[in-house]
C-alpha cells in the first residue's frame, strides 16, 4: 500500500537530528593511556585507591578475559572491535571528591540539567535519589543523608568498596562471576564506577533510586558495575537511564548489573536505555553489551526487570533471574525499538531451581527502517522445581518492509509438574489504523505514537509513574520519521 511506500521514503530521509541528547560537555578530563593490558587494570585500581583483594579480583578477571572469545551467536553484525583502540578510564579532573552538590563542577550540573536531570531540583522537589555517573566515575549522589537514616546505602560502588568492603567482597561477582562471559570478564577487569545499593532487613526504600549514566568522552568505553542487595523482607525500586553524545565512531558500553534478593525481598529494576543509536546510515552509536542478572536467593523473593530500549546501535542484553528460593518470582517486561540500522538481540533467561517458582516474560519488539529486532529467551526448569510456572508472550510490530523481527525461545524442562506457556504474534501498523486516527485529526506521527504506545501498554504500565510518561515520549521520538 501507499502508506508503506511513504513510510519507507521517510525512513530513508531520517537523520540523527532527532537525538536530542547528542551534545558534548567541554570539561577537563583525566584519561588512562589508550589500550588494554595488565598495567591499565593496575592503573584503574590505583586511581580508585582500591584494596589489594579487589586488584587481585580484577587481575583474575583480566587473565580469564584473555583466554575468552567474543560471543558470536547473537543475530547482530558489526566489524571486529579493536580493544586496544579505546580509553578504559576517563574521569572529570577534580582534585577533591565532592562531598555535596555545592562542590560538584557547575559544568557537570549543567550537563545533567540539559539531560533533564536537574540534580539540585531533584534533591529539593522530587522524591527520587539520583547517582550521576559521568564517563568512568560517579559525580554526584543525591538524598544520601535521608536514605542513610533508614540504614539504606546508596552510593557509587567505588565508595562502597572503601566504606563497606565486607558487603562488596561478599556479593561482588556472586551472581555474575568474573568468567561468566567475554563482556562480563572485560567489565570485571576494568569497571570504573556504578551504583551500590544495600537495603537492610525489613526496610522499604521510601523513594525511587536512580542512576543516570552519561558517556561523554571520545573513544571511551563505559564499564559500569551495579550491585543491589535487598536483605530479607526489604523492598526497592531502582531506575537507570543513559545517553551519549552523537559521534561517528562506535563506543562500547559493557556493564554488569548484579541483583541479590533475600527472603521475602523484592527488587524492581527499570531501565530506560537511550544511548546514541547512530545515524540513519548506521554510522556511530553505542554497542550496548550488557550482562544483567538477579539471584532470587530467598524464599518468596521477587525480581522484576522492566526495560525500554530505544537507543544503541547494537543491543545485546538478557536481564535474567535465577529463581533459587522456593516460591520466588521473576519477571521481565521489555520494549525494544530498532529504527534505521539499529540491531537488538535481547531477551531474558529464567532459571527455575526452587519449588513453585514463577516467571513471566512479556516482550514487545518494534522494528522500523532497516532495524533488526530479535527476542532471545531461555526458560530452564530444573528437576526439583516442582510446580514451576512460566508464561511468555512475545509480540513484534513491524513498520515498513525492510526491517526484521525474530523470536528465538529456548525451553528446557526437566520437571514433569512444571507448566510452560509461550505465545508469539507479529503484526504491522495497518494502513486502516493510521487512516482512522488521521480522520480524527491526528498527524501520521501522532497516530504512530498512539498505536505504538498501545502495543507497549502492558510493559509501560510496569514502569514507575514518574518515568512512564517520559518513556512514552521517548518511544515516539525514537520512531520520529519512521512514517511520513
Amino acid at each position, binding site marked *: *500500500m*501507499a*502508506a508503506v511506500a511513504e513510510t519507507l521514503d521517510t525512513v530513508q530521509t531520517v537523520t540523527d537530528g532527532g537525538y536530542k541528547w547528542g551534545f558534548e560537555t567541554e570539561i577537563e578530563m583525566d584519561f588512562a593511556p589508550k589500550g588494554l593490558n595488565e598495567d591499565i587494570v593496575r592503573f584503574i585500581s590505583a586511581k580508585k585507591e582500591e584494596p589489594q583483594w579487589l586488584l587481585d579480583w580484577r587481575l583474575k578477571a583480566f587473565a580469564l578475559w584473555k583466554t575468552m572469545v567474543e560471543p558470536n551467536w547473537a543475530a547482530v553484525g558489526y566489524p571486529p572491535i579493536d580493544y586496544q583502540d579505546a580509553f578504559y578510564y576517563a574521569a572529570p579532573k577534580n582534585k577533591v571528591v565532592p562531598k555535596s552538590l555545592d562542590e560538584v563542577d557547575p559544568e557537570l550540573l549543567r550537563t545533567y540539567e540539559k539531560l533533564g536531570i536537574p540534580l539540585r531540583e531533584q534533591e529539593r522537589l522530587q522524591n527520587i535519589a539520583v547517582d550521576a555517573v559521568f564517563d568512568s566515575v560517579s559525580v554526584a549522589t543525591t538524598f544520601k543523608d535521608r536514605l542513610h537514616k533508614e540504614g539504606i546505602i546508596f552510593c557509587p560502588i567505588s565508595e562502597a568498596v572503601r566504606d563497606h568492603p565486607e558487603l562488596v567482597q561478599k556479593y561482588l561477582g556472586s551472581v555474575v562471576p568474573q568468567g561468566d562471559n567475554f563482556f562480563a570478564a572485560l567489565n570485571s577487569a576494568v569497571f570504573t564506577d556504578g551504583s551500590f545499593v544495600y537495603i537492610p532487613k525489613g526496610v522499604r526504600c521510601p523513594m525511587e533510586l536512580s542512576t543516570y549514566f552519561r558517556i561523554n568522552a571520545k573513544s571511551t568505553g563505559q564499564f559500569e558495575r551495579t550491585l543491589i542487595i535487598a536483605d530479607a523482607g526489604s523492598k526497592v525500586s531502582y531506575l537507570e537511564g543513559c545517553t551519549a553524545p552523537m559521534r561517528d565512531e562506535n563506543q562500547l558500553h559493557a556493564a554488569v548489573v548484579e541483583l541479590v534478593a533475600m527472603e521475602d525481598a523484592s527488587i524492581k529494576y527499570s531501565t530506560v536505555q537511550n544511548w546514541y543509536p547512530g545515524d540513519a546510515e548506521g554510522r556511530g552509536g553505542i554497542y550496548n553489551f550488557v550482562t544483567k542478572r538477579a539471584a532470587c536467593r530467598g524464599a518468596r523473593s521477587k525480581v522484576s526487570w522492566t526495560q525500554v530500549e530505544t537507543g544503541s546501535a547494537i543491543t545485546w542484553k538478557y536481564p535474567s533471574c535465577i529463581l533459587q528460593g522456593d516460591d520466588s518470582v521473576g519477571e521481565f517486561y521489555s520494549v525494544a525499538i530498532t529504527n534505521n540500522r539499529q540491531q537488538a538481540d535481547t531477551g531474558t533467561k529464567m532459571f527455575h531451581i526452587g519449588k513453585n517458582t514463577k516467571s513471566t516474560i512479556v516482550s514487545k519488539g518494534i522494528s522500523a527502517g532497516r532495524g533488526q529486532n530479535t527476542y532471545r529467551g531461555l526458560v530452564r526448569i530444573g528437576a526439583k522445581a516442582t510446580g514451576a510456572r512460566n508464561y511468555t508472550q512475545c509480540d513484534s510490530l513491524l513498520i515498513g518492509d525492510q526491517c526484521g523481527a525474530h523470536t528465538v525461545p529456548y525451553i528446557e524442562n526437566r520437571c514433569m509438574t512444571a507448566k510452560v506457556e509461550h505465545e508469539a504474534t507479529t503484526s504491522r501498523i*495497518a*494502513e*486502516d*489504523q493510521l*487512516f*482512522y*486516527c*488521521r*480522520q*480524527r*485529526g*491526528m*498527524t*501520521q506521527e*501522532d497516530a504512530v505514537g*498512539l*498505536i505504538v*504506545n*498501545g*502495543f*507497549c*501498554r*502492558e510493559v509501560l504500565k510496569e514502569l514507575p509513574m514518574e518515568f512512564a510518561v517520559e518513556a512514552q515520549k521517548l518511544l515516539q521520538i525514537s520512531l520520529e520519521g519512521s512514517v511520513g
Partner: protein
Amino acid sequence: MLRIENLVVEVEGKRILDGLHLTVPSGEVHAIMGPNGSGKSTLSYVLAGREGYEVIDGSVEFDGQDLLAMEPELRATSGLFLAFQSPVELPGVGNATFLRTALNAIRRGRGESELDAMQFLKVVRGKMTALGMKDEMLKRGVNEGFSGGEKKRNEMLQMALLEPKFAILDETDSGLDIDALKLVADTVNSMRNPGFSALVITHYQRLLDHIVPDRVHVLSRGRIITSGGPELAHKLEAEGYAGVVKAAA
C-alpha cells in the same frame, strides 16, 4: 458546504466513481442510497482522503476550500467527519486516550485551547450518557472486542464529541437493532443546525424514517442517477433498486 463536480475515481485501475455531481448546502442532510458496488463507500473514503483512491477527474469544494488537495487530518480539523462502516481496532490504545487525543487535535485545528484530563472526562461523560454508553467503554482499547453495535455507538460518540461541520455516515445503520438505530438518529438530529450538514449513506429506508433527509440521491455505477425528496426513499423500498435504475437509464 460541499460541492462535488464530475468526480471520477479509480481503484487499482478500475473505475468506481464515474462523473459524480453532488451539492450539499449548509444545514441540510442528504441521503445516498444505492445497490452494492455502486460506489457509496468509495465516495466516503475519497472525501475523507484515504490512500489508494485515484482521482482521475473532477473537483470537490468543501467550505470554500479544495478538499482533494488537503491531507486527511486537515480535512478532519477543517470539520469533516466520517463515521466508518467497520471501525478498526487499536489494540491497547485506551479509548479515553484516543478520544482526548482526537478532540484536542480538532480543537487545536479550530484554534481552541486543549482540554486536560479532568475537563475532557466531564465533556465525554455527558455525551456518553446521551448515547447510553457505560463508563467502562473509556477504559477499553479502541473498538477492541466491541460488538458491532458498540462500535457504531463509539463512532456516534466521536461525532458528538468532535462536533464536525459535515458528517458522513457510511452505512452506520447496518447491523443495528431498532433501539441503536434510534440512538444514531437522535445523535444526528440533535446536531442539526444551520451550520451542520450530513451525508447519510444507507442501503435501507429504515434509518431515514428517523433521520428525515432534505434530499435523497440514488447512486448507481458511480453516478447519481436520480434525486428527490424523502418520498424517493419510500419508492425505492417499495419498488427496489432495479426498477428505479432502469427507469433512470
